[in-house]
């Protein structure tokens, strides 16, 4: 039997005195691609950060999660004063990759060839997001947690990212992402948080 | 008692204002320290009791009556 990468069993989530979600259960197995749906403020980000272990919001119930994960949230995690390459080099050093060729290749994958030495603050909004998402081509993590990865990304970029996410799942990884737009990916599992609203 | 008269107690050979000033200030702090949580706790208990009484009255009078209040 394949081990679950992530399992929530009837989890309740609180923010201070307010209960956001009740009885959320889902399991992520290798190869799964989950899209979290839910209206604004339904608790997608809160749940994802709790899964990643970033916040310890009032969580009742069982949570099992692999340590080998990549989280990309609303914040870019980029230093605006450093170049694309310098930023990714630091991110990649958290994993294993650190040679410049791989980093430049990842930047090329997200359509930023020629921008390697440009500092982040001189890029457009979408280009900045792309630098952050170039980590998907560098990471060795098995579970990807992506909070609204398609923000500010154009149509071609969205297709690129979707392809990479599917490639990752096919290779035995798993993805949990949020997005308000329907995607063009096949075999997607939907977790609608509006169902679990407290 | 060491002092002969009450005015001597008050005067303390010229040190009266200092000694009594220090003691009264301390007394003020002590009173505040004890009284402020005490009063707050009383208010809160009163509040909770009232709420309970209201709830009890509502359930005693029946649901339709309670909905009017």
């Amino acid at each position, binding site marked *: 039997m394949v081990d679950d990468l992530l399992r929530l069993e009837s989890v309740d989530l609180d923010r*201070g005195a307010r209960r956001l979600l009740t009885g959320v259960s889902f399991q992520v197995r290798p190869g799964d691609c989950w899209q979290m749906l839910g209206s604004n403020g339904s608790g997608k980000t809160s749940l994802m950060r709790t899964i990643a272990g970033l916040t310890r919001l009032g969580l009742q119930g069982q949570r099992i999660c692999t340590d080998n994960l990549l989280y990309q949230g609303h914040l870019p995690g980029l230093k605006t004063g450093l170049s694309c390459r310098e930023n990714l080099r630091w991110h990649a050093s958290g994993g294993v990759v650190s040679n410049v060729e791989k980093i430049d290749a990842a930047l090329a994958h997200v359509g930023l060839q020629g921008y390697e030495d440009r500092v982040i603050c001189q890029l457009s909004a979408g280009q900045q997001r792309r630098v952050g998402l170039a980590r998907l081509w560098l990471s060795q993590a098995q579970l990807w947690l992506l909070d609204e990865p398609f923000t500010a990304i154009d149509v071609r970029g969205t297709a690129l990212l979707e392809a990479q996410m599917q490639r990752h799942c096919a290779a035995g990884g798993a993805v949990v992402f949020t997005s308000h737009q329907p995607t063009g990916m096949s075999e997607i599992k939907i977790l609608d948080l509006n169902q679990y609203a407290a | *008692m*060491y*002092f002969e008269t009450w005015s001597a*107690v008050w005067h*303390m*050979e*010229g*040190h*009266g204002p*200092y*000694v009594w*000033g*220090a*003691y009264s*200030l*301390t007394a003020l*702090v*002590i009173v*505040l*320290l*004890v009284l402020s*949580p*005490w009063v*707050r*706790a009383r208010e*809160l*208990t009163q509040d*909770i*009791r009232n709420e*309970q009484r209201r709830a009890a009255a509502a359930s005693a009078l029946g649901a339709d009556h309670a909905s009017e209040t």
Partner: protein
Amino acid sequence: MWSIVHKMGSPPWFFRFANGAIAWLLPIVLITLVVGCVWGLLIAPPDYRQGNSYRIIFIHVPAAVVALAGYYVMATAGLMSLVWKIKMADTAMRALAPVGAALTFVALVTGSIWGKPTWGAWWVWDARITSMLILLFLYLGVMALSEAFDNKVAAAKACAVLSLVGTVNIPIIYKSVDWWYSLHQPASIKFTGESAIDASMLYPLLLMIVAFYGLFALSVLLRMRTELLVTHRQSAWLRSELS
């Protein structure tokens, strides 16, 4: 031992305990305070050098002693809340800081009132005095930090870390302030350091120290009880406790 600690960590048990303890402590504290003050102010003989102004000692020294001890109590509560995650320790920490700060303030103010007739100045930068001022800053820091967080759990954890860091530093701060300007600079003012204090003064002083410890415990318990009333307002045990 562990069972006691865990029992104390449960809010309902603590609420009942606090109620009982407050009922006992309040008369004891009142009586010892009144007796101690009357003894110190009216019965004890004056100091042969300082005259009657020394009577401030009966509030100054107890306040200073308890204020100092209070910081260690607070740090212990911090340790309990961080390591053993005892809920009541969080509450205790938030209650301890203002009480400690108030007592430190009393020690500072009575000291500087005492200083005026004795040294002719309200304030001097003496080692003891300076370190007491720093203690006040430490207490105020904990209070400000706990107030600044919206999230109460995070506030308690942050205060616990701060008070633990402070404990490591307190002996260092005290030692360093004692050495401050002590080597080649003649310290202009020294405390009357002799501990050979007469029994007629020692007994009321000891009584007042006991009274201030009692006062400290009393006001901390009062604050913790109030905090419980706020945070557990909706819970069933509190409602059954009150009815």
